[in-house]
């Protein structure tokens, strides 16, 4: 809905051509630095990691200070325990950790005299069936390739999704999320909005099922990400699934993949 609204405003501006944008300097406070946890457990062997960093001042460059020398442990509810070792500054991992579906994982981070804990669940209800594409020249937006994802949503429970498009091996940065409010229990073909593909592009999609806590965190994160035009009346920090005086989240990703080549 926000996109729609932005679109209307944009059309208004186009029509009357009266607006103008400029960079201004706003005096912002500098908040105390906080530890930022960016932790993922997934069923994909290369996507299990904990990145620890610190927040920075708003006008600083985007090189954030790493948190090194922390004790990081992930356990699952079957009793398995994985000690995450620091393989690069602030990057903690363990090659034996591969997320199991239908399993709850618990994270414990001890860094700079602080303990941060959290837990996440890897669901296993739906999977991507296939991808398709068509040439959309209906007039709503510029003519372009439109990619559809096909899968069947589970009707009995709430499902939450995140889609990660990878175009010619390059992972798109944006956070694309969906809940099953409008597709509950149906065999759906859902368009991958805001993803531009050209002729002969190779498009891979990571179709990720997530739990509610992860969804809620990512949803707010996507709204406050720097670069998003903040029309939210009162932006706030996302509600994290971590305890402790920290920022960030612990996400559980149940990933299924698909890929397609756009042939005109």
């Amino acid at each position, binding site marked *: *809905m926000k996109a*729609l609204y932005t679109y209307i405003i944009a059309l208004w501006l186009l029509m009357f051509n009266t607006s103008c*944008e400029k960079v201004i300097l706003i005096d912002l406070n500098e908040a105390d630095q906080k530890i930022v946890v960016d932790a993922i457990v997934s069923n994909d062997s290369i996507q299990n990691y904990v990145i620890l960093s610190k927040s920075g001042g708003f006008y600083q460059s985007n090189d954030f200070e790493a948190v090194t020398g922390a004790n990081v442990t992930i356990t699952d509810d079957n009793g398995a325990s994985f000690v995450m070792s620091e393989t690069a500054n602030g990057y903690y991992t363990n090659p034996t950790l591969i997320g199991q579906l239908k399993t709850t994982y618990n994270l414990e981070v001890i860094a700079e005299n602080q303990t941060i804990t959290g837990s996440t669940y890897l669901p296993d209800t739906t999977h991507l069936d296939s991808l398709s594409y068509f040439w959309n020249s209906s007039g709503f937006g510029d003519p372009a390739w439109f990619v559809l994802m096909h899968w069947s949503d589970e009707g009995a429970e709430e499902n939450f999704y995140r889609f990660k498009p990878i175009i010619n091996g390059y992972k798109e940065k944006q956070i694309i999320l969906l809940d099953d409010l409008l597709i*509950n229990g149906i065999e759906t073909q859902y368009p991958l909005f805001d993803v531009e593909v050209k002729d002969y592009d190779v498009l891979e999609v990571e179709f990720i099922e997530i739990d509610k806590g992860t969804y809620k965190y990512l949803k707010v*994160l996507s709204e406050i990400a720097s670069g998003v035009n903040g029309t939210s009346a009162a932006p706030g*920090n996302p509600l994290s699934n971590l305890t402790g005086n920290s*920022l960030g989240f612990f996400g559980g990703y149940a990933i299924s993949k698909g890929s397609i080549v756009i042939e005109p």
Partner: protein
Amino acid sequence: MFNFTPLSLNKLNVSIMRFLLLTIIFSAQLMSGQDKFTVSGTIKDSTDGEDLIGVYVTVANLNGVGAVTNSYGFYSITLPKDEYTISFSYVGYNTVDKKIDLDKNIVMSLELANSSEVMKALDITAEKEDENVTNTNGSTVRLKPKDIETIPVLFGEKDVLKTVTLLPGVQSAGEGSSGFNVRGGASDQNLILLDEAPVYNASHLLGFFSVFNSDALKDINLMKGGIPAEYGGRLSSVMDIKMKEGNSKKFSTSGGIGLISSRLLIEAPIVKDKGSFFVSGRRTYADTFLKLSKDSSRRESTLYFYDINAKANYSFGEKDRVFLSGYFGQDKFGFGESFGFEWGNTTGTLRWNHIYSNKLFSNTSIIYSNYDYKITIGGPGFEIASVIKDWTFKQDYQWFANDKHNVKFGFNILTHKISPGGINSIVPDGVIADLNVQDKRSVEGAAYLLDEWKISNRLSANYGLRYSSFYAIGEQDVYSYNENGEIEDTTYYGKNEIFQKYHGLEPRIAVTCMVDEYSSMKASYSRGYQYLHLLSNSTTSSPTDIWMPSSNNIKPQLSDQFTVGYFRNFKDNTYEFSVESYYKPMNNLIDYRTGAEVLLNEFVEGQLAYGVGRAYGAEILIRKNKGKLTGWLGYTLARTEKKFEDINSANWFPARQDRIHDISIVAMYSFSEKVKASASWVYYTGNAVTFPSGKYEVDGIVANYYTERNGYRMPDYHRLDIGVTLYNDKFKTAIDPETQKEIKVKKKWESNWNFSVYNAYARENAYQISFQESETNPGQTDAVQLALFKIIPSIAYNFKF
């Protein structure tokens, strides 16, 4: 009298009402020691037969005795048997004095003539020159559309809502919004009535225009505080807008052609002096220019609105009169076949005036109000639709008890049906599962009694009591939530089954004490309950904002307002000065929890947070009403803060509409009868906003880090608008057929050209500030300000014949 309501009113409250009514009747009886008679009637305009509202009817040699005509032009005065000179005065009209021998009840209906056929100096004055000082309620402003004719506005579209925001205590909710905030209240706390029908969304085209077409309006009365007991349902203000009746003397047409829209109004008698009607329409056509565009996507775009106002009235004999009025407006926005978005209001009011006796006036109304929006997506084939539907039955009595007491009482029953929205496939095998949020139904009932009491020559009061009640009824599933906003319990309630009740007493009192002939002190207290709430999740007013009724989860909002003020006029009422301050604590305010999902959410009530608020401030107004130069200077110093358990660590934080300084200067200068110029300048402190105080990286994304709610300010806003209006000659020279002398005769065709410049010095006022990665310096973050308007000139041609 109050037993008649299908809802069982609380017995205690009914007896309080009865007691008050009896007291007034009793005191009225006490004073009638001798033979008394009543003079009553209706006052109209002599040229078009419009009822004149607020005409002062005074009695010579009896200081302080008199009456004011009501919304239907009716007045009544009761006096001991004697000879009197009654005088009828109304600003802009010739005062009429009538000698009467009051030895029986007299009906005296009059028509007043415009004091001058040339344009009068522009004034938003009260009806009597010193009304500013003498009237009971300080926090009230009355406007007539004629008064705002020359004030410059965006695209030359004169607009009562925009003009109202130039007054102290009333703030525009910002550029691109017709919303306004009164004394720190939220924009949903304004009760906007069009011929008594509530208007749920007063804006066209995303708020750049209001839905009120000035041509169709007669009278706008804005109450910021000390709201009389006859009004209720919103906490902060009442904007009571009345449509004109239509010319009952002759057929007449008026209209205007502007840069982006045109207007036309037709009015005529149904039967001369017995009934009349008008129909008025307006449509924007800016989008037709899009068709000329080279860009195909622009050519296929639609963006326009239109609205229609219509009204008819007819008098059946001396005592009965019936009015039927309506409004229909629609905004349409679309993109070829693939996308459509339309929204609009519909209102209808059927009224019956009956004069039971020369002292008792009654009005019965049946009112309908509807607001809906629909979004159609052509490609995947679905639509989203939402509707609010209200029916009201309203009975009001006005009893002109005697020369000291003017009593009003009545009751109303309001039903709401809110369908918050649903999404439905409009093609077979759609990709979207249909989703419908359940309808919410409720009933509001209210009864009131108030007395305008002239205690002495120096002291007057308007006091009263309103009892309001609210019933949330099925059929629907009713949810209760735990503290995390998750559903704890679901209960089904059948059709018309009450699942939640609220009720309360709303005492209202306003007192004026004359200090001397030119100055007065005024004070007021009022309490109000609000049972409907607007949930808005964006900074701009959006057609998709959702109205929510109170429920088991949402308690009614409650406010108390205390005001005190000093009013003084100078130099034979040429200058008016007033200073008024207010304090307004508010309870059960609503805000979102972080990350709330509002649209199409069945469980939205679980995503709300509840808190308290406080607003306080002082308003200063200096106004010049006479002479070539007229206008005003308004200044408001105010704070508005909120406190929520779950927001901002339970600390007080400024509300978005917290505007510390707000200045407006409006000046109008009449060079001659044919040339008038005007200018307005506004300045205000930027709204309170939440900006980041840091940033961090997570999931490969740089996110903003927020520390306090609304801890920052938008840049200060200021803007100058100027306008010039050129009138054609209103008179032509003719030879009087009888005397053969040259005389001036009024022309049939009147017209004027209006030129205006919005934002004359091209100030780039911030509409939005976003934080994004620097284009010139990657890895750095910039604050980017978007301004909607630079300088906008416009031209309009208006006519009347």
